[in-house]
């Protein structure tokens, strides 16, 4: 269960977002500049909004009215960044274990390595990896820190078609096997339709709609167009 209310002013965007969702995987869907990543950063604690309240599974992560702000390092959220952000000086194994030092050999490690097919990559450095490989390592690194929720920021953007399908398959397997609460940010309708249970539509820093995936599929899944093309459609929803 995620409950979120945010107000924040950027130089070029006024964020005023509120929603509540009980779905296992919530997608924030909208075109670039809608404020999707800012919402994710606020959930992770990397953005301190002017005003806001964020409650995840009953725990208050942020409540500016009461001066509560759980530090990022204590939130236990597995953030997979759009640009991967692997540590360039560490090999894949050390990257994977960064959030879980001392768990080198345990079953979780073996499971995550098997699930994401990382075995052949373990000794490599991030700069030698392809985009898809890098993203799989980033997902594995986030999972091994034993998060209570996953935050995925455009995890498939910038990947070529083959890698995209591969990472998407892995994300779907993760969803089935781990059932971790996930917030997905994406501007692509097809990704959202295949991963999310509930969708929050965002445009220019506002929520413009909220719907279950079945409704979303019925409206958008035939289209693979980016959200920009759907902006007009999303304006009359909700």
């Amino acid at each position, binding site marked *: 269960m995620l409950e979120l209310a945010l107000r924040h002013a950027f130089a070029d965007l006024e964020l005023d977002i509120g929603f509540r969702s009980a779905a296992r995987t919530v997608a924030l869907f909208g075109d670039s500049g809608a404020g999707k990543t800012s919402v994710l950063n606020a959930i*992770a*604690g*990397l953005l301190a909004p002017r005003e806001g309240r964020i409650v995840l599974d009953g725990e208050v992560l942020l409540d500016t009215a009461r001066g509560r702000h759980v530090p*990022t*390092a*204590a*939130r*236990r*959220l*597995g*953030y997979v*960044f759009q*640009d991967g*952000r692997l*540590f*360039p*000086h560490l090999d894949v194994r050390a990257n994977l274990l*960064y*959030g879980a030092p001392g768990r080198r050999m345990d079953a979780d490690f073996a499971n995550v390595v098997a699930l994401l097919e990382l075995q052949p990559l373990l000794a490599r*450095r*991030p*700069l*030698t990896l392809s985009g898809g490989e890098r993203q799989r390592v980033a997902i594995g*690194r*986030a999972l091994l*820190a034993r998060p209570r929720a996953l935050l995925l920021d455009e995890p498939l953007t910038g990947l070529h078609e083959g890698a995209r399908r591969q990472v998407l398959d892995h994300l779907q397997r993760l969803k089935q096997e781990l059932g971790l609460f996930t917030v997905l940010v994406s501007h692509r309708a097809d990704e959202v339709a295949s991963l999310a249970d509930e969708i929050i539509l965002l445009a220019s820093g506002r929520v413009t709609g909220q719907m279950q995936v079945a409704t979303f599929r019925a409206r958008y899944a035939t289209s693979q167009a980016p959200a920009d093309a759907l902006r007009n459609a999303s304006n009359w929803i909700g």
Partner: protein
Amino acid sequence: MTALSPDEWQALALSLRVGLASVVAALPFALGLAWLLSRKRFPGRLLLEALVYLPLILPPVVTGYVLLALFGRHGPLGELLAGLGIVVAFRWTGAVIAAAVMGFPLLVMSIRVAFDSVDPRLEAAAETLGAGAWRRFTSVVLPLSLRGIAAGCVLAFARAFGEFGATISFVSNIPGETRTLPIAIYELLNVPGGMPGVQRLSLVALVVALAASAVATFVAGGALWRSRRNA
């Protein structure tokens, strides 16, 4: 030109020892200050930065005088240290302080540039993985800055090895205690028949400077080679 005399060996050994000790002593402070200047915004930050870089601009003799006023037997810091049984005025440890202060701006500058070039988004990623401030510093910022830190150490060592003005005004010229290589050269210049000694020691200074420069290039080159292999 003949081999170095025992006095000249002594001056060389002392200069090497003072140079190394000054870098070791200054490094933790330089790391802390560079991190503050690179990552934090606080009132008085510009003033602090100006103070750190002051020894670079101030005449070294003045820096030496300030050190004498502070660390001398009746200076505030000197009395404090004397209470702990440590005397630095006219001791080799005083020469270390003088050299450390003179090399400090170079050390802080290099390290700060290295810290600035570490992508703060990597620190944010580490933070989401549960790393607190200290772990982020030691596991992300520090290893990614090693090249700049090493370059700063070599620069500061070279600066310390050649230190003259602050050292002679703070701890004077005592053979075996504070007569470093540059001070020995200066003394020989003022002694009839001292010229061969001046030449020998100058040659030694040249060799040490070349070696330091080679080490710096090797460190930077090694790091470059590694990053190219990974690209």
